[in-house]
């Protein structure tokens, strides 16, 4: 479980923040990064996050696998953008400065600058998500959701999802093997429709047994008083300390900066071409 979401337990100030704080900060940071296309802010964000990683004691090698994966995905996406819309930069920035080639796929400064910003936008959100998943105990997550105002019943359904993922995974694996032995084929050897029918032969037993499980689990929860009161407490809940408030205020400032920049620039984009 911990491996799946890459939670790494270490003694660090970031680990010690309450999960709710980290979640609020993650949201504020993401909104800030999502709303802006200002290059200066997009450069500043990754630099801050590298600094935060240092504090968290999470090593590069701890997240290298996931990082490679994201970078490949990012690369594919930028290539797609170029193939589909090689002059998107011109549309965005209003000018057209060709530096190489001609015709539809001529390379413009604006396009390159757009790609730079697009990449930066990724790089300014990825580390903070990674930081969140590596420093927040999954157990604390539901408590955090509840703390920021999500109803506890919905927060608990997130906890249940995390709880039952390993069980479902194991059951899927076992059913899949037994059905393969009966000749169910899901690889390229079978036609697409047969692949999907094969998948159903595994899914049907898996889901029918999950339906039984839903009944058992909900009985078990009611027998232990779930849903009795309007509120509930959390074993993994943490009280806010002053450092928590400080972090939230700082992230709120980031969002304010992002909004102010949009106002000053007159658009979400920082435009060096005019």
């Amino acid at each position: 479980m911990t491996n799946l979401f890459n939670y790494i337990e270490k003694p660090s100030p970031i680990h010690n923040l309450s999960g709710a704080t980290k979640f609020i900060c993650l949201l504020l940071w993401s909104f800030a990064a999502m709303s802006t296309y200002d290059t200066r802010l997009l450069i500043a964000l990754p630099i801050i996050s590298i600094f935060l990683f240092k504090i968290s004691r999470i090593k590069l090698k701890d997240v290298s696998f996931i990082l490679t994966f994201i970078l490949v995905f990012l690369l594919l996406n930028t290539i797609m953008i170029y193939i589909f819309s090689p002059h998107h930069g011109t549309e965005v920035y209003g000018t057209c400065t060709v530096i190489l080639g001609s015709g539809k796929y001529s390379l413009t400064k604006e396009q390159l600058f757009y790609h730079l910003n697009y990449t930066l936008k990724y790089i300014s959100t990825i580390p903070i998500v990674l930081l969140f998943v590596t420093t927040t105990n999954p157990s604390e997550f539901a408590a955090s959701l509840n703390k920021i105002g999500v109803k506890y019943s919905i927060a608990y359904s997130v906890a249940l999802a995390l709880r039952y993922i390993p069980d479902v995974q194991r059951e899927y694996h076992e059913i899949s093997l037994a059905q393969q032995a009966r000749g169910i084929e899901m690889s390229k050897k079978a036609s697409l429709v047969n692949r999907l029918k094969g998948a159903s032969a595994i899914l049907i037993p898996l889901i029918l047994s999950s339906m039984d499980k839903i009944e058992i689990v909900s009985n078990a929860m009611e027998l232990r008083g779930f849903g009795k009161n309007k509120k509930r407490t959390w074993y993994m809940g943490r009280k806010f300390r002053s450092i928590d408030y400080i972090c939230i205020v700082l992230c709120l400032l980031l969002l304010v900066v992002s909004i102010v920049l949009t106002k000053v620039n007159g658009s979400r984009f920082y435009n060096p071409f005019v």
Partner: protein
Amino acid sequence: MEEPILKFENFTFQYNAQKKPTLYDISFSIRKGEKIIICGPSGCGKSTLMHCINGLVPHSYKGEKTGSITISGKNTQNMSIFDISKSVGTVLQDCDGQFVGLTVAEDIAFALENDCVEVDQLHERVKSVAKLVNIDDYLTHAPNELSGGQKQRVSLAGILVDDVDILLFDEPLANLDPATGKYAIELIDEIQKTTGAAVIIVEHRLEDALHRNVDRIIIMNEGRIAVDAKPDELLCQDILKETGIREPLYITALKYAGVDITPQMKPSSIRSIVLSDEDKRKVVSWYENSTKEDIEDKRPYLLEVKDLEFSYDKKAKVLQGVNANVKEGEMMAIVGTNGAGKSTFSKVICGFEKETEGTIIFNGENLSDYSIKERADKIGYVMQNPNQMISKVMIFDEVALGLVTRGVPEDEIKTRVEETLKVCGLWQFRNWPISALSYGQKKRVTIASILVLEPKMIILDEPTAGQDYRHYTEIMEFLLKLNKKGITVAMITHDMHLMLEYAKRSIVFSKGKVICDDTSANILTNPEVIKAANLKETSLYDLALMCNIENPGDYAQRFIDYEREVER
């Protein structure tokens, strides 16, 4: 006399979807600190009775009732399921279903969290309760890092955080190996003594549940209470056989020997029973006069496994240096604790996992390069829960699936499926939807869906898990019938009765190695192997020692052989 903590008075209950009541005119009461076992075959109403006690009836399952249930003098009619849960704590059979927290500590805290107990108190209370059930070293563990026994202890802790008056256990032995089950019964006993709560254990494995003293046994049959008596008295009656509950083996053995069982002998446990010299002589003379089937087996090997090694990640070996074989036409068992390697062994044989080293020879052929699908034509694998295999609506389609995927012509499919259905006694149901079948019949459908591929051998994972004696017998006799038709049967199990009665020979796994390969009767009377494999001595062993019989294994074997004769 003290007022009863739980009291049923002329209680009758009928589910909305049912045509007839499930419970008829139930009256009994339990006092504080009493410990009782409720026993009965599947469908006798014991689960419904339990739901009536903990409030799931009528909260989750609606129906009509007459009569009353009172807890500590209060009629449950006026109580919500939450009020009831303050007095009655339930440990469900399915420990994974009951374990709703991400870690041990969170799960134990669950009920307190729902009561809005403050965080500091939560931590304190969890720690002390965890200590009580001896799980305090595992507080940060996730459920998939725990064994079945540990999960059960967490469930118990999770209800002990509330000071409940009644502890309700639903088949606490069903998912445990024999040694862990024994420990569970001891733990329940201790908890009861420390908390003073009343304990109700719903269980059909009477002999194992009686490992520790209980005050009363209630036998249910067809929705009614058949008997409510002290264990010592109950075991002298014939009610168990009549209701299809397995009698403790030592009791049956004594009856075979012609010993007259009386309450004064304290027959409720093999440790309390007092036998006179006369009784012992009877047992010995029965032993001397009985015969043993010749067990020398000269059939050729069907499956030979040599120096098998397996590991998921090159570090920890799950199987090491495994040498084992199965003879043609044999019916045998593969036993060992969870994680000892018995399931992995069968998975490697079936090609679900690829061995890191070693060879598997089947019928003279090396299986190494065969795919899962190709191996399935030779060795069939039947999963524990039939619901995990069934993916079609109609019986015919389900059984035909393996042939369809193999591109067998339609008319051949028809004849082969029909033949298999006849062999499996499903012919009369051929046009039924699978959902209309009972658990045992569904099990037969899954076995049929494997047999249709005409494998020489089938491997079954826990073929009778969670089944009562009647269904157990039904499934096992069916397997025996198949075996007589020439199909080699290997069963992964930790059911000791199954080993004794249906597997002449067993292979015992411990820590990835085969530690013993012998007759089941010898294994279950060998203390060293029993300890290593988390098994439990059969009470026949204790009885043999008590009567100074030198070879307990031989005694157990003769008992089983004789029982088969009598039953037939």
